């Protein structure tokens, strides 16, 4: 989070350039190595996606004969587009749902005093301690009972609200001064409108962060979608791509092309939303 909120090119960086201490050199070196480790697979992914099947095991980073054939093949394959659509739809719905419900509950926990508030909060938090692996079987049984297996809803329902998101939003709403809400109350707004029109715009940075995390998390989700879907039409992109691998001999160049295409939405989401994180931090409205 903190990393998301600093802006490049701040005066701090410029000032630090002058006194380079050994500690700093260490830090930068480590960061650099970390960066290389993170970026290399990505580069190989793009590189492989531009190679023909015969060149895949030629490990040069720059393909000898780059070609867009893989992209044309993947994009003209109806299955890929279907999975892409599935993933987009699911990630969007789950993200919207989280933004709505997590902040509604977080707001209620942060700004209203009611009996058992603390208990509810603890109950929500405690679900964070249960690992997903433990929940998959109950989820599956539940889906089977309700007939949710092999449906979009079946894939989405476990993530429609998260304890982490609720906790995050609660913390942010706590920093919204009550005066804003009371001013709106005196102005005659109902509680729902106050939340939507006043409180929500003030936590835009938190909402953006939540949206990014949720979208990425669901975009790359693999385990649960794999379990709850049977028909290929309902596969999400990661599940679908992995099925490329099992089917025939592994077609690395196709998988890499699919994966490369799959990064586009995540990049888009991040680029669009991170602006709000920065802008939100700069909002001012109280005496400051």
């Amino acid at each position: 989070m903190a990393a998301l909120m600093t802006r490049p090119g701040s005066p701090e960086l410029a000032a630090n350039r002058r006194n380079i201490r050994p500690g700093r050199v260490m830090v930068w070196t480590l960061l650099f190595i970390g960066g290389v480790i993170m970026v290399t697979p990505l580069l190989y992914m793009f590189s492989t996606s531009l190679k023909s099947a015969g060149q895949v095991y030629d490990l040069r980073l720059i393909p000898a004969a780059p070609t867009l054939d893989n992209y044309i093949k993947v994009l003209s394959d109806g299955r890929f587009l279907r999975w892409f659509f599935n993933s987009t739809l699911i990630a969007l719905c789950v993200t919207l749902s989280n933004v709505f419900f997590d902040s509604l509950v977080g707001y209620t926990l942060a700004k209203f005093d009611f009996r058992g508030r603390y208990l509810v909060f603890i109950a929500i938090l405690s679900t964070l301690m249960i690992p997903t692996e433990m929940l998959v079987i109950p989820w599956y049984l539940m889906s089977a009972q309700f007939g949710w297996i092999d449906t979009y809803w079946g894939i989405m329902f476990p993530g429609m609200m998260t304890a982490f998101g609720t906790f995050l939003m609660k913390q942010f709403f706590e920093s919204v001064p009550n005066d804003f809400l009371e001013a709106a109350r005196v102005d005659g707004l109902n509680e729902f409108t106050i939340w939507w029109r006043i409180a929500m715009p003030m936590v835009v940075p938190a909402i953006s962060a939540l949206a990014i995390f949720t979208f990425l998390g669901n975009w790359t989700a693999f385990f649960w979608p794999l379990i709850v879907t049977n028909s290929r039409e309902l596969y999400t992109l990661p599940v679908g791509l992995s099925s490329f691998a099992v089917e025939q001999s592994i077609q690395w160049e196709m998988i890499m092309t699919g994966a490369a295409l799959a990064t586009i939405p995540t990049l888009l989401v991040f680029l669009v939303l991170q602006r709000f994180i920065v802008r939100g931090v700069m909002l001012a409205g109280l005496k400051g």
Partner: protein
Amino acid sequence: MARIELERLVKRYGATTAVHGIDLMVEDGEFVVLVGPSGCGKSTTLRMIAGLEDISDGVLRIGGEVVNQREPKQRNIAMVFQNYAIYPHMTVGQNIGFGLYTSKLSKPEKQARILDAAKVLGLEDLLERRPAALSGGQRQRVAIGRAMVRDPVAFLFDEPLSNLDAQLRAAMRIEIKRLHQRLGTTIVYVTHDQIEAMTMADKIVVMRDGRILQVGSPTELYEHPVDIFTARFIGSPSMNLIEANAAGAEIAVAGQSLQGFKAEHSGPVQIGVRPHDLVVGEAGGGGLSVTGSVTAVEPLGSETLVHLDIAGAQIIATAPGRVVPKVGSQIAAHAEPGALYVFDAANERALGRL
């Protein structure tokens, strides 16, 4: 517009009582200021009137109707907060217009109201700006604008000027007062600044520890404080107090004997004299004369405040502007007959003037 009546209004927070059953009548169109030290229950009282705080006991009437159980929005009251609370994600125009969010006016009518309010407050040129790009005084005016457009039955202000610098505060004081004269709407205004109270109020309510000590016009409070607390709270610098002894109509103070005290109280008393009534110089006929050594001087230009030590008591006297006595020198100061306030030393209640 409406009259606001508080009848034995009580606010309890669990075991602690913040407001102890206060009675107050705010007449229609009146400008009432609640003053008192920090924590005396001013904000709590105001918030009960606004409907932001539940009323623990007692009756609150607005325009003759009991509103204890009504939501803030049903009371049609506007409130301006100490830290403005204007919405950072809206422009000035949207902020002012937000007061009309629930109103059924047509769009052009709303626009006209917003423009009117902006004109009155000198914000016409800033309507498109965001709060982040406004000065403190401008932000507070936006907050007032948001309250104004609603045409409420009363305005509530909770220390609206305390975040502004002294100069701006003086200017805004006048502006709010003008606004009141222009709109004629009932105003309840909370402050702990006695100058704001004195300059703006039709009626001042002095509070302490969740109780009302005294209600009256600024002059009444200045001339006839009911106890030492009010006497020292109203007027700046604060009233001097000198220990004395009363025996019937005679009071012994600072080595003199003053005659003609009408209350005929016997026992220890405190003599109050305002710095502005205690003038450096030799005595005329009657009144109180004191001599002491100068411990500090504060030249203000138009006058000089002279801090004196008289037999261990610290008091403040005034001297004309160009007279600046030397620190350490012995000087005399004098108060005219009639300028003295007498208080019972035991219960601090006022006994009368002398």
